[in-house]
């Protein structure tokens, strides 16, 4: 595995170099107004290529193909985005043979746009008109903070809440925390009872970003001309100091996320809570099968008592790649895939996709009690959280590098060589340097 990782990293480096060479001087961030004429129906039958790694996507696409003989969609698949498909997209863009549509997670969308790899969907009336169907913040994720740009159709979202072991909390007479302050107090009691309240993962920078997002912090802003990087802003600092305290006082475990040890820590009851996104429900039930029936979901702890604010972790969009000859048909398909009841139901069944439309949150499958969670209707909690996510949070164009740097720093902090704040400071500097190296304008 180590080997393949290195290969992939080398590949990324090469790709960035190639991409740079390809768009020297072109890394601008203003795309101007969208051209409505560009989004006209094509003559005759159309075949679209669509790359996605969502399990079961073939079956959903087959439903579309049946109903739309004149717009056929061919699915291509591969590893998940960061696992290699993004690299593949970039090289296809470079070679000029990208598919018409592709799955892109929100945090990677900016990098594709900066490399000029995406069509602006604002040219299509249908897309613009669909804005109201989506949860506001998911739309913010595809406009990338611009006024007149739409760079994808939101597919799913990852509103965050608190998964906790209701049985252990009850047995030990600990109240379920509603604020981060209470969460820390609970952590002390959990530690006394022999467990850890949660696991601080050095790899999941997305989770950390979710905490910052919850507190209305901003890591990146883009005013149309320049990017502002603010990893060390007030909210980031607050979050980092908070977790640093928990680490210093040995109140959280530090297993590498998604490993067997990590699963075991949850399965054996050593770790009691997880602040995670809606899709985390599946991770727990598969990773900790012995704890079935003992988990519950509560709203995320808040920074101030009485607040109702939620973070987001994950989610993706369907984007149309630059160079497609069928923008109109591509957006038609993307809208069907992400707004129609039949597609959303199928996606939810096959891959636990949590819809990005407001109507999608009312899917029948999301109204039922979940056995693993003691029959609790956990999706009610997430539906509420989905409405409490700040719509203005924007991802930067070089997230892969930012994540890697923060993660390196966090790893050091966990082993006691440095702090979380220092990690953010270092990542702040290197992010600015990376942006400059790619000729992306940065405000300082």
């Amino acid at each position, binding site marked *: 595995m180590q*080997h*393949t990782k290195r*290969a*992939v990293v*080398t*590949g990324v480096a*090469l*790709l960035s170099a*190639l991409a740079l060479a390809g768009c020297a001087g072109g890394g601008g961030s203003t795309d101007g107004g969208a051209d409505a004429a560009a989004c006209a129906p094509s003559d005759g039958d159309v075949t679209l290529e669509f*790359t996605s*790694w*969502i*399990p079961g996507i073939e079956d959903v696409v087959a439903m579309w193909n049946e109903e739309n003989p004149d717009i056929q969609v061919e699915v*291509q*698949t*591969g*590893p*998940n985005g960061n*696992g*290699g498909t993004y*690299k*593949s997209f970039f*090289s*296809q863009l*470079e*070679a*000029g*043979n990208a*598919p018409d549509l592709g799955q892109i997670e929100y945090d990677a969308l900016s990098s594709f746009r900066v490399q000029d790899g995406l069509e602006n969907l604002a040219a299509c009336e249908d897309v613009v008109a669909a804005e109201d169907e989506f949860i506001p913040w998911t739309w913010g994720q595809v406009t990338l903070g611009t006024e007149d740009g739409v760079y994808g159709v939101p597919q799913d979202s990852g509103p965050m809440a608190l998964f906790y072991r209701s049985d252990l909390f009850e047995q030990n007479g600990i109240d379920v925390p509603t604020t981060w302050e209470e969460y820390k107090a609970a952590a002390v009691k959990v530690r006394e009872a022999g467990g850890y309240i949660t696991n601080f993962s050095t790899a999941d920078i997305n989770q950390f970003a979710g905490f910052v997002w919850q507190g209305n912090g901003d890591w990146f802003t883009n005013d149309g001309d320049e990017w502002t990087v603010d990893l060390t802003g007030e909210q980031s600092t607050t979050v980092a100091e908070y977790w640093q305290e928990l680490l210093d006082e040995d109140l959280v475990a530090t297993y590498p996320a*998604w490993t*067997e040890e990590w*699963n*075991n820590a949850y*399965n054996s009851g050593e770790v009691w809570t997880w602040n995670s996104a809606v*899709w985390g429900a*599946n*991770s727990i*039930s*598969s*990773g*900790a*099968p*012995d704890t079935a029936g003992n988990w519950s979901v509560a709203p995320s702890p808040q920074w101030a008592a009485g607040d109702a604010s939620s973070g987001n972790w994950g989610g993706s969009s369907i984007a149309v790649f630059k160079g497609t000859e069928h923008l109109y048909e591509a957006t038609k398909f993307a809208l069907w895939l992400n707004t129609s009841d039949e597609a959303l139901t199928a996606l939810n069944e096959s*891959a*636990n996709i949590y819809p990005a439309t407001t109507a999608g949150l009312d899917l029948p499958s999301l109204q039922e009690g979940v056995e693993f969670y003691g029959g609790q209707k956990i999706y009610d909690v997430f539906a509420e959280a989905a409405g409490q996510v700040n719509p203005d949070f924007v991802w930067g164009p070089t997230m892969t590098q930012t994540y890697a740097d923060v993660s390196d720093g966090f790893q050091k902090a966990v082993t006691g060589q440095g702090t979380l704040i220092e990690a953010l400071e270092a990542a702040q500097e290197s992010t600015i340097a990376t942006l400059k190296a790619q000729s992306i304008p940065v405000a300082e």
Partner: protein
Amino acid sequence: MSLLTRTDGALADDLKPSRGPRESILSRGAALVVMGVFTLYFLVPIWWLFIASTKDRGDLLTTNALWFSDWNFFANVGDLFAYNDGIYLRWLVNSLGYAGIGALLATVVAGMCGYALAKYRFRGREVFFNVVLGGVLVPATALALPLFLLFSQVNLTNTFWAVLLPSIVSPFGVYLSRIYATASVPDELIEAGRIDGAGEVRTFFTISMRLMTPALVTVFLFQFVSIWNNFFLPLIMLRSQELFPVTFGLYSWNTQLNQIPELRTYVLVGSFLSIVPLIVAFLLLQRFWRNGLGTGSVK
């Protein structure tokens, strides 16, 4: 082999001086420990993989990682081959195709090239050889992207050829074939062939190639293993999962574990089964490179 035979036939007293410095128990023990550690180091992961493939998903996380619990191996294998319309079998066949055909062609090409470099004198021979040798230093990963751009020009990406064609090139094979041909194919034998009226091509295929068998088998095995394990090239080139080799297919499953937990078992069983062809190839071919076939042919 020869050392042993000699020991058997000789008297113990005669042997003592020829044994060289007597090894102490300590150094022998140290050597054994080092070998033992390495053997464990290589075998434990395979053992773990085997054990893991015999468990169902619940036991995998909860029971001892290095010992059996309930035996589910055949059920797991059945599920693996049934999942997604048996795509795993398809991947296995693809891998055999890429690695088998690719390694075979690579061996023929490298063998001919190395032989020519060893046996014919022509202008620029050393320059040519050095350029090929330089190819050994270029990692396959670094070539994947330029290859992708080239293949895109001729519409060959996302085809069987996109992975097969680059696999035919083996600079290391050329190098090995050249030094082996120099050492094992006597000029006199080629001369004899010519006098008997055989053309150069016939001489190569009927005489030289047989003498070079140990080297060619080595080239084949090296190439087979490296194509089998090649990951980055399929990642860049392929988009249709019907074309994936088994390593890349398993990898793409592995990146989806969070969405479909049952894939964890399939990835484990699939990985275990995917090393079987490599082991078979080694066992079948190892006897070919025991000794030089041409030894003594011109004496």
